[in-house]
């Protein structure tokens, strides 16, 4: 990384070009993320279409309340992340750090609740694989639901862990005074990433927990 805050790397003409390149690069990266989750969504859609009853039965084993609380927590973390970027725009170092810490805390709460949910599923033998036990005539297809549940939420959680790692890095950078009102691209980029992870959950929650509740 550049020693001087906001220093322009040699391949760029000026700070503006550098910032626009970083922004475009991040959006392009988010497109790849979109398509990655897209692959899972296709599988989910195909199997939900084929086995609607099994997917409803699978949903009924999930905890709407915990999922709902997690949705709220994640939205909270998205707010604090947005505020961290805002503080960065205003060049307030302390504000950046506080908001990033809050975001990490909310992200941690989300992962904690997720871990509790996972442990319940392990306890109830609902993890797909040799130990999957469900007393149902369509247990095979319910297992498919749980395969997608774990694949999708697992990938999502993995992204969150990476995001938290990135924020810890940002906090260290912010503490050393790397950012000012002119240069805060890393905060902005991590922010975009975090919001995207939030968006994925906004879709996962209704698709996995809510459809077929009535």
């Amino acid at each position, binding site marked *: 990384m550049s020693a001087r805050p906001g220093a322009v790397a*040699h*391949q760029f003409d000026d700070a503006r070009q550098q910032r626009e*390149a970083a922004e475009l690069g991040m959006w392009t*990266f988010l*497109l*790849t993320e979109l398509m990655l989750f897209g*692959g899972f969504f296709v599988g989910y859609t*195909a199997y939900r279409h084929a086995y609607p009853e099994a997917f409803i039965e699978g949903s009924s084993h999930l905890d709407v309340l915990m999922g709902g609380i997690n949705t709220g927590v994640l939205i909270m973390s998205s707010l604090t992340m947005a505020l961290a970027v805002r503080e960065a725009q205003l060049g307030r170092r302390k504000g950046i750090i506080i908001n990033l810490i809050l975001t990490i805390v909310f992200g941690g709460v989300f992962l904690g609740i997720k871990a509790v949910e996972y442990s319940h599923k392990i306890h109830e033998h609902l993890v*797909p694989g040799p130990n999957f036990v469900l007393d149902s005539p369509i247990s095979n297809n319910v297992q498919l639901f749980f395969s997608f549940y774990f*694949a999708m939420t697992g990938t999502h959680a993995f992204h969150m862990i990476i995001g938290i790692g990135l924020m810890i890095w940002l906090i260290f950078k912010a503490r050393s005074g790397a950012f000012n009102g002119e240069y805060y691209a890393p905060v902005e980029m991590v922010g975009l990433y975090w919001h995207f992870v939030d968006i994925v959950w906004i879709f996962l929650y209704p698709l996995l927990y809510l459809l077929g509740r009535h």
Partner: protein
Amino acid sequence: MSALTGEDAPPQAPRQHYLNVTYGVRSWLLTLDHKRIGLLYLASITVFFLLGGMFAVMIRAELVTPAGDLLQAETYNKMFTMHGLVMVFFFLIPSIPAALGNFLIPLMIGARDLAFPRLNLLSWYVFIVGGLFTLFAVVQGGVDTGWTFYTPYSSTYSNSAVAATAVGVFITGFSSVLTGLNFIVTIHKMRAPGLTWFRLPLFVWAHYATSLIMVLGTPVLTAAVVLVALEHLLGIGIFDPKLGGDPVLFQHLFWFYSHPAVYIMILPSMGVVSEVISCFSRKRIFGYKVIAFSSLAIAVLGFLVWGHHMFVSGQSVYAGMIFSFLSFFVAIPSAIKVFNWTATLYKGSISYDTPMMYAMGFIGLFTIGGLTGLFLASLAVDVHVHDTYFVVAHFHYIMVGGALMGYMAAIHFWWPKISGRMYPEGWGRFSALVIFIGFNLTFFPQFILGYLGMPRRYHAYPDEFQVLNVMSTAGATILGVGYLIPLIYLIWSMRYGPRAGSNPWKAKGLEWETTSPPPTENFLTTPLVTEEAYAYAAPDVEEQEGARVG
């Protein structure tokens, strides 16, 4: 004639350039210079090409005789699988984009480097790690699923090192994504002043389209590989019909990437051919904008036709009809390109230098490959020739006759820029001819074999197919020699070739305005672009100018 002949003083190399600015292994392995990273890629894909070629040798050697005598059936399965895997994922996909695109795009757009040099280096390391995993799989005993990893071969009934190979492909995917992302941002944001979109070389347009495919397609393959890994490890039935899963879902996800991946291979070659044809006809490219947009059209349409690989898979007939119908549309932008190249040649002052010979070969072979693709895109015909040697011949005409010919053209065309030296022109033309003859002798008989009904992926066959198979193997031998000749003389020329000078072909384009080899920063001053990419003057004016400027 070769542009080297002339009364000028022999060209000198610049005192300092990207090759001699620093020395030592460290300076290469930690380099952030896009030119050096391009060369790292060039060296690694050459190794993979030789490896993939060795598997091909085994295949062709086995098929000399009808009986399965040289290899056992299982070994043969591994040979064609490893041949496909290595050639597709570790040679063709990174070939022109990661090696030459990396080297040339910043030069062509007048930038000092790609937008993200660190990502660029990272992508090479990721590529190497992916490659090592795949090599590890070879040592572990190889894979026998076919390069397509179809379930249930790769899940329920897998009996070979599928996991290591899948991890290798998974990792390599990230390398591809990073390269594509870097190109997109670079082409958008790093162009020199005055270099508008419609002044860009068509090579750059082609790479933009290629990068779109890399960025939007590869992640879906990643998702598919993750699901196969889950299925493989846990046996949870995502693709197992016994538990309600659908093996065809894997094919959907796989081909959503892997069909467009064919265009990752061919589009950059098309870009190369546009450059070469224009340069050696001394003419402005015909229909610039149409060629540029046809690259994008191929990239977009390429995503809508993947189901034509699945006509006999149990996919719905109606979906098959849609995919078949859309597949025909890909022919339109491809044909537009071929016609425009032909029109560029018309009344041009053509010289048959080595790159031009490869480019001409490309046009002919790609046309055959493309047209036979239309046979396969027709639902009813495909049912008969599916999984026969007709398919094998078709895609080798595209991938080898098309993509690889373009790669060879590109290597020869830009070799003076890369190395600062000329290769022996006579040997260049000779090997181009050998490759063309060897290629056709190898793969044309396979069209006939497939039409007669010889299925692919078997190590033994009925006696009546032997003559054509022997022809094919003989051709493959010639082809192999044809590839070894350039390998030898190009390496030789790095030391002993005559100095090239900055523009040996008198070509247009920013990359020819800097020295050969270029300095680390590419240009001493940021160039200002005032004309289009193919401003070749009329031939007579060109000569006078050439005499004056030298």
